[in-house]
């Protein structure tokens, strides 16, 4: 019993952590959808959804129920296997990066102070298994998987998400869908280059590809570059623009431009399969917001917080985590704000902007950063 529990313990912890992280992110994503409709309403002088629950707070659940209950139409001439595969690929690729998000600083001793209030449970040779658990939980990282190539992992996994869109466009057997899929794959390949190049500057300054390592590097930098947005402002702008293109958001939402392509790649999708695409888009928004915050805005790091709370204590972690979420919410709001403000690019403008302006600027930024880092380290 005791050994079985001790063997199973890491698996239980990881399962709970994954459940919490995914549930949390999906709840935030559900409310991003509501926030988008509300904010767009305010921008356009409307009220927005306000019927389900007070101020419409239950709207996401009503939407979900509607998605489940709607009829699931499958086009007769579609390629069935690929048609079913596409939304799964899109959502899987969108959700996978959650495992490397740095949600907060590691907590030195999270549950020892709770032990006196908890019941004593003896198990095998352990007098109190709660004490053993508290011992195991020391130095608890607020990241599910600590891998030393977090930045590359996020870039790689999100780049797989383009298959969801491209295959959906191809398998629907619909001209508009195919155009949407084609546009999407061309657009994603083009802007991925600029995105990768804009990340390089930060990686060079931090000297690591680990997301937590990048945050620590920012915390340990001199005051004039506490956040990498200051030395890497050009990189930040390039990253932000290519993030809009990567998530297919206005002004780069060419793959689903409703005035040209009906609904683009998901024209033929309905019910839950459409909901999967919808969720994938908003989870992708969340992911690039996290990347923006971690790479350029210091992640969970709040300057001066270590003077108020002890580093590694529970309140320190909670306040840091709240700051992290607040920064993400700012970027999510920025997405909605820009959607309500800017018109859409034309496709040739989009391509020439990506290749002839964004990519050279990003590469120039990399070269300048290389020279500066080299001179600084001499």
């Amino acid at each position, binding site marked *: 019993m005791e050994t079985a529990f001790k063997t199973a313990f890491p698996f239980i912890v990881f399962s709970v952590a994954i459940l919490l992280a995914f549930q949390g992110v999906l709840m935030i994503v559900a409310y991003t959808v509501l926030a988008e409709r509300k904010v767009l309403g305010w921008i356009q002088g409307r009220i927005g959804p306000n019927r389900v629950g007070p101020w419409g707070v239950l709207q996401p659940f009503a939407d979900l129920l509607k998605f489940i209950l709607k009829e699931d139409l499958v086009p007769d001439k579609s390629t069935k296997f690929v048609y079913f595969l596409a939304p799964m690929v899109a959502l899987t690729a969108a959700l996978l990066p959650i495992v490397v998000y740095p949600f907060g600083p590691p907590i030195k001793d999270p549950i020892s102070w709770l032990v006196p209030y908890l019941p004593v449970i003896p198990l095998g040779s352990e007098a109190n298994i709660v004490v053993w658990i508290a011992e195991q939980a020391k130095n608890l990282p607020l990241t599910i998987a600590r891998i030393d*190539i977090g930045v590359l992992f996020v870039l790689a996994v999100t*780049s797989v998400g383009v298959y969801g869109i491209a295959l959906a466009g191809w398998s629907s057997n619909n001209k508009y869908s195919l155009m949407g899929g084609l546009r999407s794959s061309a657009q994603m390949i083009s802007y991925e280059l600029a995105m990768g190049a804009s990340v390089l500057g930060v990686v060079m300054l931090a000297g690591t590809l680990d997301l937590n390592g990048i945050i620590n590097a920012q915390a340990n930098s001199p005051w004039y570059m506490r956040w990498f947005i200051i030395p890497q402002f050009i990189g930040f702008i390039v990253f932000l623009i290519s993030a809009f293109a990567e998530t297919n958001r206005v002004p780069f939402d060419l793959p689903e431009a409703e005035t040209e392509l009906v609904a683009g790649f998901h024209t033929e999708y309905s019910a839950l399969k459409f909901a999967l695409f919808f969720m994938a888009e908003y989870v992708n928004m969340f992911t690039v917001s996290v990347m923006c915050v971690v790479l350029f805005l210091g992640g969970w790091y709040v300057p001066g917080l270590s003077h108020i709370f002890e580093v590694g204590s529970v309140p320190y972690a909670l306040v840091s985590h709240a700051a992290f979420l607040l920064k993400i919410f700012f970027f999510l709001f920025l997405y909605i704000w820009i959607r309500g403000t800017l018109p859409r690019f034309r496709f040739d403008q989009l391509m020439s902007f990506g290749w002839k302006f964004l990519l050279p600027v990003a590469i120039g930024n990399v070269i300048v950063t290389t020279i500066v880092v080299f001179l600084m380290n001499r």
Partner: protein
Amino acid sequence: MAGTVLFFLFAGFAIACAVSMVYHRNPLYSAISLIGVFIALAAIYLTLAAPFIAITQILVYAGAIMVLVVFVIMLLNLDEDKPLNRLKYLYAVGGGLGLALLAQTFFIFYAVLKAPKAEVDPNMTAGKTMSIGRAMYTEYLLPVEIVGVMLLMAIIGAVILVRKMEHPHLELVGEGEDEKE
């Protein structure tokens, strides 16, 4: 134990996807199967303690090369391959080649099985990003530079190959419409 189970799981998936790639005549099905092979191989690289190579595999193969292939297949709107090959003797050649290579594979399998076991160092650092980067920019600097030049050549070559000026393009169509208005 877990490593063995994972290996056979992903090895089976990789072989199944590879067979399906050769079997399917529709090029898009082949491409999807090949992406499956790449992802399975990336998982196997992870069990071989090479996370950097695993992620690069996803990033370069699944995220860039295969997107290009899928894009070209969709752009050319390719039909299914014709079933009958004009050169019938190719079937015999292919079968013979396959048998020879399989025999060689089994020979290698037994030779390595009989050979003294190589010890796996659990604390190996060869897969770490830092050690790869250090080796890349010190010991293997010249090959890396040559690869850089080769990539530049590939970019220029691709641009020259696909460039075509006879037929009007998007910009010309747009200008024509402007004049009408």
